[in-house]
């Protein structure tokens, strides 16, 4: 099988892509029904509201506690991992993370990498990096495999191929997988994928996985999955490399337990997943299987920027369940690709500005009606709408206003014209005399109101001041009494 160059989209053309997505009826139908399905599934897992709220409180407390002690917990995690013989690497940027993995592969003379699902590896575009250096990098999660085969990127953090229909996948497999015949039978399609990937598991030199929770106390990596590809990835190849964001750490094994209950219930509406895979170090003496060498790559990539600010720090509480996107009216309409970022939907809107800078992501925080559905379902209670408003403000600040914690790309949406309009506006509203003057002029000169009113008249009829102002009408009424 030949893998395709990944198509890179950038968040800067966000508006154009949204427009395109909104006019794609098929895509909208796929997302609408998939989101409804996931919402119903989640709701069925939380029949008892008290239980749900109690568990969310604990989940939030666990994540907040981990963040409050993050530097110490990272050091503890590192020490525990090292004590088990795990190599620990730190990366500030995506390129550094990729170079670390490439270095491990080169040292081992590895040519074939098999991957379990890992959003961090998507974030750093590891496949692209390794393929460009002659190392095959194959996704083994069924959804990721489908997306890779199609030369696309995931459109959802939990269900990567959710934008594709069964028929799309049937056509893709028939075209791309040698000796396969066209079928729309899901069991047969999965069997085909399984057969292709089984050989690859046997041959792979390195398995790359993500991490759901990293337990500092024991140096344990806790992975959550249904397919078994994560277990195969972390068991069969000689070398296992786990990639994780620095925020993934929790203090104790006990702390991971409520999160492991919240995650599958919120994500796919399952009481639990098929496998919880708790890995503590590589193969020990006398054991017959498991990797002989194990590495953990800790990635920053903008997370320390979110961390530096007390309010924005909450972004890092995320356990990547995807519930916020499943419940987002914007995501359900435009789909994951429109965002052009690794993490789409509400979590992507609050996280991407730190990963990519506000310059490239300034429009993302505006793609929300602030309806609050995301915050209502978030298992760790991240106040997503508040963070969206905050990021909108950061994007519209003056770029060099001497802020103590300047976000990268601060003021990306700042415009002098807009600033002047608001100055003018507040000048008028701050003085009764000026306000009266404007009122007088607006009601008398209403016929001169322009018919084209920027964005407003794109889809609506123009606004025009009333003949009489409310103040005038009220005064008359009072006098008439």
């Amino acid at each position, binding site marked *: 099988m030949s893998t395709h160059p990944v198509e890179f989209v950038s968040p800067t053309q966000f508006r154009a892509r949204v427009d395109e997505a909104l006019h794609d009826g098929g895509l909208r139908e796929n997302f609408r029904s998939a989101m409804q399905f996931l919402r119903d599934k989640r709701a069925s897992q939380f029949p008892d509201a008290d239980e749900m709220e109690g568990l969310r409180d604990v989940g939030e407390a666990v994540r907040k506690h981990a963040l*409050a002690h993050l530097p110490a917990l990272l050091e503890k995690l590192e020490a525990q991992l090292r004590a088990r013989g795990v190599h620990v690497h730190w990366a500030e940027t995506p390129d550094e993370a990729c170079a670390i993995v490439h270095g491990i592969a080169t040292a081992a003379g590895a040519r074939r990498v098999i991957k379990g699902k890992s959003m961090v590896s998507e974030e750093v575009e590891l496949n692209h990096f390794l393929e460009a250096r002659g190392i095959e990098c194959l996704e083994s999660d069924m959804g990721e495999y489908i997306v890779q085969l199609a030369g696309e990127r995931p459109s959802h953090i939990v269900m990567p191929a959710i934008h*594709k229909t069964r028929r799309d996948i049937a056509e893709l497999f028939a075209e791309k997988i040698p000796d396969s015949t066209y079928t729309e039978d899901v069991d047969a399609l*999965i069997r085909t994928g399984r057969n292709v990937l089984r050989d690859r598991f046997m041959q792979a030199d390195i398995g790359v996985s993500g991490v759901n929770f990293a337990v500092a106390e024991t140096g344990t990596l806790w992975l959550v999955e249904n397919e078994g590809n994560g277990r195969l990835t972390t068991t069969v190849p000689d070398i296992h490399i786990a990639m994780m964001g620095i925020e993934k750490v929790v203090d104790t094994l006990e702390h991971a337990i409520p999160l492991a209950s919240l995650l599958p219930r919120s994500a796919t509406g399952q009481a639990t997943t098929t496998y919880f895979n708790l890995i503590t170090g590589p193969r020990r003496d006398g054991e*017959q299987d498991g990797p002989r060498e194990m590495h953990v790559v800790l990635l*920053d990539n903008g997370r320390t920027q979110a961390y530096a600010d007390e309010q924005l720090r909450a972004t890092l509480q995320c356990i990547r369940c995807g519930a916020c996107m499943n419940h987002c009216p914007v995501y359900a309409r435009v789909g994951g690709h429109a965002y052009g970022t690794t993490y789409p939907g509400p979590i992507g809107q609050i996280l991407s500005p730190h990963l990519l800078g506000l310059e490239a992501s300034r429009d993302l925080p505006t793609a929300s009606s602030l309806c609050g559905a995301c915050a209502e379902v978030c298992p760790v209670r991240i106040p997503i709408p508040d963070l969206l408003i905050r990021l909108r403000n950061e994007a519209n600040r003056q770029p060099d206003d001497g802020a103590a914690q300047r976000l990268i790309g601060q003021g990306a949406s700042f415009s002098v014209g807009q600033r002047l309009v608001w100055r003018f506006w507040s000048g008028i509203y701050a003085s009764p005399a000026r306000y009266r003057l404007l009122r007088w002029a607006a009601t008398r000169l209403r016929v001169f109101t322009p018919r084209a009113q920027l964005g407003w008249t794109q889809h609506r009829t123009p606004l025009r001041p009333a003949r009489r102002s409310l103040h005038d009408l009220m005064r008359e009424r009072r006098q008439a009494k």
Partner: protein
Amino acid sequence: MSGARERILARLRAANAQAAGTPPDVAAYYGARAAALGASPREVRVARLCECLRASRADVIVSPRGEWTAAAVAALRRRGVGRLAHALDPAARALVAALPPDIDAIAFRDPIERWKREIFEHCDAGFTPAAAGVAATGALLLNHGRDLPRTLSLVPPVSLILVDENDIFDDLHSAASAQRWAHDMPTNRVLVSGPSKTADIQQTLAYGAHGPRELVVIVVTGGEGAA
């Protein structure tokens, strides 16, 4: 990249994050829930475990202690298993002793490098004993390590797991605290709740994605001690 390490940690320290709110008391949360629900008797835990496992498409067989090997053999026969991979634990030895001549027992005693192809291509089933069961979610704990290779419950198309009714706990938290999991982490603890599955094609559930297509669970009842 130790420079990266120092810089990342320095940036995190510079934020001066204060411990926000009360530290989490996970034990108190689960304790309060357990008190509200009342400790469930063993029969209820067993029934709940079986119900959850069956809901995830596992074949669950409840068997009296003296008869479990016969029940296991019957389950393997029904699936036409000809080659069963196993480790060298006491339960596996008991099962192997009961195997009829048409089922080959293949002991996993060498490093996987020596028989990767064998287990990937020629084993129909793998046997593993579970160290605990979690009733609330229907999950079984496998403590992989020296005596129990991980591949056994992962690669062959049928996974056969044995669990003792005396090792079934109400929920994950009570299992982890009663057995003091954090004190001694084996290389690979796995909780299994069904056959491998995926819903990645148009939300349609399909079994046998990468791991076993079938999970057969034998719950032994009656008496004390190891099966």
